[in-house]
C-alpha cells in the first residue's frame, strides 16, 4: 500500500483518466474536508461538478458551499439512486455524457447507514461496476463512506470496489481492489419467495396473460396509477426477455414485501453482461431498453444469474 498525504481525489496512480476514490469520513468535519475542496477546485478550473448524496449531506454541502452551490448540480441520492442499478445510467452517465469536453467531477454516495441487507448486494455491485462502466472516461467519481456508522464489512468491500481510498486526509492505493470479484461474490441466490406466491408459467403465447395477471395482483396488493403502469412495463420487458433470450419460457411470482410489491421473473437463460441495463440507450437506438427500463422505474432490482438460469426480482413502492 502506498500513502500520500497531499494528493487530492482527482489524482490517479496510472495514465487512466478515470479516477474513483473512496472517501472514508468520520463526522461532518471530515466529510466537508474531503468534499468541499474537491468541489471548489473543480469549479475554479471549470470542471462541471455534480453532487449525488443523501439528503442530510446534501444540505450540509449546500450550506458549506454558500454561493458556490449555485454552480453545482445537486441530486438527493436517496431518490435518484434509491435503486442502485439506475445510478450509472440515470445519474452518473447522464451528467458525464452531457459534459464530454472536459474533466468532470462527481461526488456519489450510494451507500449510507440505513441501506437494508436486501439493498446492499445491489449497492456494492453498483460500486464495482462503476469501474468498467467509466474506464477510459475523463472524470473523477468520489464516493464518501461514513466510517463511523457503516459496518466494517461495507468498508472492507469499499477497498475492493475503489482503486484508491482517502482516509484522515491520506490517499492510498487500495491493496485489495478487485471489482470483478465483488460482482461475482454478491451474485447470490435470492431469498425464497413466499410459498403463497405461486409461480405463473409463461411462454410466448402467455405474455399478455401473465402481464395482466401481474397488474391485477399488483392492484390487489395496493399499487395504483403510475406505479401500476410501471409494474406492467417492467413485467412486459422481463417476460419478453425470458421468451426471446432466456430459453423461451419463464415463471413470474408477485407478492407483498414489507412496504413494497415484489415481483420476480425466472428463466433458464444466463445474463453474461454485468452492465446490461446500466448503459444509457442512444436516442436513435431501437432496442436494448428493457432492463434499463426496469432499473429506471423500480425502487430496487436484485439479480442472480448463473448456468442454471436467471432470477430478476424488482421492488415497487407506492408513491
Amino acid at each position, binding site marked *: 500500500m502506498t500513502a500520500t498525504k497531499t494528493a487530492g481525489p482527482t489524482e490517479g496512480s496510472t495514465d487512466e483518466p478515470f479516477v474513483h476514490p473512496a472517501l472514508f469520513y468520520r463526522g461532518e468535519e471530515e466529510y466537508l474536508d474531503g468534499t468541499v475542496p474537491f468541489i471548489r477546485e473543480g469549479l475554479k478550473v471549470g470542471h462541471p461538478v455534480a453532487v449525488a448524496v443523501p439528503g442530510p449531506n446534501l444540505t450540509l454541502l449546500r450550506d458549506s458551499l454558500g454561493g458556490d452551490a449555485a454552480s453545482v448540480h445537486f441530486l438527493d441520492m436517496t431518490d435518484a439512486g434509491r435503486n442502485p442499478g439506475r445510478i450509472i445510467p440515470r445519474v452518473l452517465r447522464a451528467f458525464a455524457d452531457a459534459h464530454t469536453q472536459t474533466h468532470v467531477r462527481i461526488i456519489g454516495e450510494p451507500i449510507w447507514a440505513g441501506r437494508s441487507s436486501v439493498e446492499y448486494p445491489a449497492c456494492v455491485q453498483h460500486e464495482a461496476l462503476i469501474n468498467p462502466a467509466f474506464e477510459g472516461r475523463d472524470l473523477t467519481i468520489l464516493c464518501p463512506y461514513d466510517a463511523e456508522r457503516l459496518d466494517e464489512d461495507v468498508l472492507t468491500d469499499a477497498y475492493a470496489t475503489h482503486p484508491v481510498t482517502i482516509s484522515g486526509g491520506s490517499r492510498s492505493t487500495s491493496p485489495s481492489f478487485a471489482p470483478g470479484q465483488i460482482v461475482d461474490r454478491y451474485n447470490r441466490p435470492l431469498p425464497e419467495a413466499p410459498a403463497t406466491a405461486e409461480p405463473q408459467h409463461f411462454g*410466448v*403465447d*402467455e*405474455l*399478455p*396473460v401473465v*402481464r395482466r395477471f401481474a397488474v391485477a395482483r399488483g392492484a390487489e396488493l395496493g399499487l395504483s396509477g*403510475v406505479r401500476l*403502469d410501471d409494474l*406492467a*412495463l417492467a413485467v*412486459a*420487458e422481463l417476460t*419478453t426477455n425470458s*421468451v*426471446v433470450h432466456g430459453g423461451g419460457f419463464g415463471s413470474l411470482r408477485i407478492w407483498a414485501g414489507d412496504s413494497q410489491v415484489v415481483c420476480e421473473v425466472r428463466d433458464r437463460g444466463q445474463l453474461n453482461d454485468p452492465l446490461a441495463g446500466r448503459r444509457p*440507450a442512444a*436516442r*436513435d*437506438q*431501437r*432496442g436494448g*431498453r*428493457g432492463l434499463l*427500463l426496469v432499473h*429506471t422505474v423500480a425502487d430496487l432490482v436484485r439479480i442472480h444469474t448463473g448456468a442454471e438460469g436467471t432470477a430478476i426480482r424488482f421492488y415497487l413502492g407506492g408513491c
Partner: protein
Amino acid sequence: MDSLRRANASTSVAAPSGNALRLRPLPDRAGWRAVGEITSATRPAWEQTLERLTLRMTLGEEIVCHLEMSAVTFVDVAGASALAVAAQDLPAERRIVIERPPVTLPRLLEMFWPDLSVIEVVAR
C-alpha cells in the same frame, strides 16, 4: 391529396391470448387509428405503419399526421422506441400528433426522449 386518408389497406395482427393490434387509416384526417396492444407480438405491424406514415411525411405529402390511440391498452418500451426513432428521422417542421394514448406511452417518451418536440401528445 391525402394519401393516408385514402389508403384502404388496413393492417391487423392477431396474436394469441387476445394480444392483437388493428391499424386502420383515419377517415377524416391524415393518420391511423390503432386498437389493441403494442408489444413484441404486434410490433411488426406497428413498425410497418410508422414506416408508411413517416414516408408520406418525408415525401412532403403530409406535414402533420395523427395516431389515434384511445383504444390502445398497452405500449411497451420497444413500441415507444419505434415511434421515437421514426419521428427523429422526419424532416423539419413535421409533426406527429398522438391522440389519447395509454399513459405508459408519454411516460416512456418523457423517460427516454424528454426533448422530442416532433411528437405532440394529446392526453386521454
